């Protein structure tokens, strides 16, 4: 009996080595460890053996069963591994073929830039204030300290609207978002006429200047202005706020400088330059070799403007600034044709 078991084990293991696929393996399993296999017959016949023989043969048969099953398992794993190795080898893709795309939507680059600006300003406590695009001369100029025929009006060539005879107060397309400063001040004063509350707002929106449409000039453009009014607002605060803004906008190490300038609605007035982030201030084509980029105009709100807004300039002070998101984009992305912005060409818009 023991010899028979040895023979069973030997024959089974020998036949197993020749097996290389799952079907043959299943057949081998049936033939060698299946219900009617020679090994199982040995188990069935154990009862016929003597009391002495039975445990010895039983143990031997069990050993053979374990040996065959583990050999089977090992063989099964080897076959699976071989199959996997083969498939890994055969199933390689051309990874350089294009991937599948989906139609993605995008915001217009100006909206993206406006959001960057407004998000930073929101962190700094500035709330968005919006107002109309067609304005009166009074709101766009006079209340902002541009009297009729003032030479400063030369700085802002204006589109006028047909609206009958209105004397010194024609209707026009706003040349800047500054009329919103007056609207906002009036609204805030109305909240508490005796003690008007402080103001910190950002004014985004489309503005218009009488310009031909060329690579360098456009008849419409976005502007974002900031306005602060309060009882303790200084020129040093203006410098601090705008330098903080520049660091958020252009990088933590952005350096700024303030140059004296002129705007009718601010005094003192300044231009803020940021050290050119393209060349690090060494001078390049974008900054015209100056190392500085003109980013925004700013200044302390002119006392006449405060007064026109309903804030007593003896008690209140404030500052304001204005900048152009398209100009910032042109510098950042080296866009040399301003017409791309309203051209709505998907080949341009798709790059943002």
């Amino acid at each position, binding site marked *: 009996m023991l010899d028979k078991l040895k023979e069973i084990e030997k024959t089974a293991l020998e036949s197993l080595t020749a097996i290389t696929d799952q079907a043959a393996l299943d057949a081998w399993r049936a033939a060698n460890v299946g219900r009617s296999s020679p090994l199982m017959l040995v188990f069935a016949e154990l009862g016929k053996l003597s009391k002495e023989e039975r445990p010895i043969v039983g143990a031997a048969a069990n050993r053979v069963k374990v040996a065959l099953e583990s050999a089977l398992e090992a063989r099964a794993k080897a076959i699976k591994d071989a199959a996997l190795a083969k498939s890994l080898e055969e199933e390689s893709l051309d990874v350089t073929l294009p991937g599948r795309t989906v139609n993605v*939507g995008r915001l217009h680059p100006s909206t993206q830039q406006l959001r960057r600006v407004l998000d930073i300003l929101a962190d700094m406590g500035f709330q968005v204030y919006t107002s109309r695009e067609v304005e009166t001369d009074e709101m766009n100029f006079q209340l902002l300290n541009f009297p009729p025929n003032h030479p400063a009006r030369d700085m802002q060539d204006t589109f006028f609207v047909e609206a*009958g005879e209105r004397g010194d107060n024609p209707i026009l397309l706003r040349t800047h978002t500054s009329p919103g400063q007056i609207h906002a001040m009036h609204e805030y004063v109305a909240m508490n006429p005796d003690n008007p509350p402080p103001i910190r707002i950002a004014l985004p929106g*489309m503005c218009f200047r009488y310009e031909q449409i060329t690579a360098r000039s456009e008849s419409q453009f976005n502007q974002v202005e900031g306005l602060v009014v309060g009882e303790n607002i200084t020129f*040093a605060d203006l*410098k*601090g706020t705008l330098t903080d803004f520049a660091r958020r906008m252009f990088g933590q190490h952005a350096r700024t400088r303030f140059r004296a300038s*002129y705007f009718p609605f601010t005094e*003192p007035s300044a231009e803020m330059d940021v050290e050119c982030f393209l060349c690090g201030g060494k*001078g390049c084509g974008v900054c015209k070799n100056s190392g500085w980029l003109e980013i925004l105009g700013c200044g302390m709100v002119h006392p006449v403007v405060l007064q026109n807004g309903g804030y007593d300039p003896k008690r209140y002070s404030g500052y304001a600034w204005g900048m152009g998101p398209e100009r910032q984009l042109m510098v950042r992305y080296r866009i040399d044709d301003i017409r791309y912005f309203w051209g709505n*060409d998907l080949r341009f818009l798709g790059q943002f």
Partner: protein
Amino acid sequence: MKLPISWLKDYIDLDGLSIEDIARKLTLAGLEVDEIKYAGLPMPDTSAIGMHSSERHEFRTSGIGWDRDKIVVAEIREVKPHPNADRLTLLDLFDGKQNQTVLTGAPNIFHLKGTGKLPKPLKVAYAKEGSTIYDGHADGLVLTTLKRAKIRGVDSYSMTCSEKELGISEEHEGIIILDEDAPVGMPLVDYMGDAVLDISILPNMARNANVIGVARELAALTGRELKKPVIEYKTEGESVEKLVSIAITEPELNPRFVVGLIRDVEIKPSSYKIQRRLRLAGIRPISNIVDATNYAMLDQGEPLHAFDYDVLKKRAGRKNVKIITRAAQDGEKLTTLDGDERTLTSANVLVCDEKGPLSIAGVMGGVESEVTDKTKNILLEGAAWNFINIRKTAKQHNLPSEASFRFSRGVHPSLAETGVKRGLQFMAEWSGGKIAPGLVDAYPLQPKDSIVHVTTQDVKRLLGIDLTVEKISELLTHLEFKCEPTKDGLRVTAPSHRLDIGEDVVGLADVLEEVARSYGYENIPETRMADSLPPQLGNPVHEWEEHVRDILVSLGFQEIVSHRMTSPERESRVAQYDEYVVLTNAIAPERRVMRRSLLASALESVEKNARAESISLFEIGPIFEPVKNDLPNEPRKLVLVMTGLRQALAWDVKDSLNVDFYDMKGRIVLLLGGLRYTDIVYVPADSVPYLHPGKSAEIKISDKVIGVFGELHPLVKDKYEVGDAPVLAAEFDLDVLRSVSPAYGIKPIADVPPVLEDIAVILDESVPASKVEALIRQTGGRVLTNVKLFDVYRGEQIGAGKKSLAYGLTYQSDKTMTDAEAAAIRKKIVKRLEHEVGAKLRS
């Protein structure tokens, strides 16, 4: 304004400051230097760019520096003929060290050819072999280095230079003849090396559109002394007051008019030094007298006008000259210096005598009384004019000039007298003329002195810096403000050249600006605001629109921004509007009105991108609805357009359907769902003229029409050059949509599994799907949580005029539902559909 550094140095010591230092100081103080043009002085080493940031090239730079050793003052001793060329001459020249033979074709010394040794040698700018100058014959500015060559058999290795060759001006008609006192052998850069600052003058800085003004600013910025010129001269003959009188009819337009008289002038060219400075400043030298008016203007800032006194005398019939200033009569004519006959209007102011107009005040002189070669006696005018009037007149006649540039920005009346005296002084020095005693000075409207009180507290409150009274006084005194201490600060009087200092709070801001500028903006600290925070109001409209944008982007729409200006013709391709907001000064006919329709410009964008295989665009913004003689309404709109393939083609995607009505509707459903609107109703809309009558719908929420959408009408689509695919469009009225309240509840998520069932019914074509779904939902009640149409079938099987709609029904109850319960509801639904819309269950 172009400002030669050499001229500036007449009035301030600039030793130790580089030209870039000077330009930087001026720029930071608001006198922005656009460009530095070198005309001799050494240029900054451009090779250092990028090496050290401290040495960076800060300004746009042009021009050349003159090599000290190679470009020198020399003298021509004789002009000899060239042996082989008639048009060339050979100069016998001494460069301070040795004699040279120099070949030239200069026409301005040609007449001396063969006249033998010159009685008085001519001083010239001499460039030796190896020096780098501009090529005088090239177009534009091309650098060249002088090399030895043979020209018609004569050795040439050096040259006498023209202004173009040395980078002074465009002048190349002849060589420079220097003034007689030029020291032979001196490096030319030491004799007349220069650099020109091109400064933009801001509208409030007109007072600095002159050399003294800039020198004064630099004195304040550097703490150095301003060395004002002494304006004194000898006079002789009969006093001008006895010969000339002035009548000002409108002092508001002409607050002051001053004249002086100089006799027996000799008209000739100015000295080379003066000519060179004028050219560097961008003014063409004419003659010593005209040059004196221009030079004095650039020096002091007061535009002057010289009349030929004898012409005036003759016009006056040998009687005393009477100058009258007055508004022109409409249609009055005057021929100006440029030879044009100008037709004037009552908006223009004239300087006249009793016979008629002599010049357009402050803008341009008349030709009759102008200074000519034969002029002997000169009446010199300096006046003050209303800047708004001058600005209008210069614009009206398209006559921008150095004078109108200054007068249209405001020139203080006090300068009229200073200017005339300075002009007379130069005329006397340069022409040998004799100045008549006195001036005739009509000054009917004196400006008030501006007096402002400034305290240290004001400086602290508005600038945020602590300055002592003494420091404030020092800063202002440099700019010639008069400062007197008071109990709590300073009483500040504006200097007599300034018109820009107001009174009270305005004057305070004006003066504080000057304190800040002279203190230096760079020295003011950066602080964070300590003021109390404002009320938080937010901007719900803006925030909501940004949310709409985000949803649309997530749905695959590209945002566009179009021009607001268009024309009725452009918009009429899709819609007709009777009324527009019309521009009076449009830049082009196709941009003469403000848009009424976002769809019109969106369709233009589709047209522009017609080659793209798939287009989904949106725009949000106002349209402009005119209101008679008043501000227009600016309602906010949203437009969506889609066309092209539903799926992007690729190497393994060969075909795709075009987007259609239901692609657009699906996105609208997602948009409105994202905005949390419920109970949205889509009503067939057959009255939107630009949409296909059978493929368009109105969108209603709570009975408000918030928008329309559909396929573009075939006739409208034909007007656009777009592909064959249908174009889908949707327009929303955002103001109405925003006024509808959204729903904020959510549906709970059930713990037990749902029961799913399908049901298909056959109906007449005319029964809308929305009605069938509504009936199913009503009948199913609360437990029927979802109804989804998954098939629409038409065909022979079910007969003509019929359609089959197949729905997937989801039942969801709090506890597990039995099949029997579901079957009961289903039976009710079928019965209801049979009864209400004649449906038959499809088996």
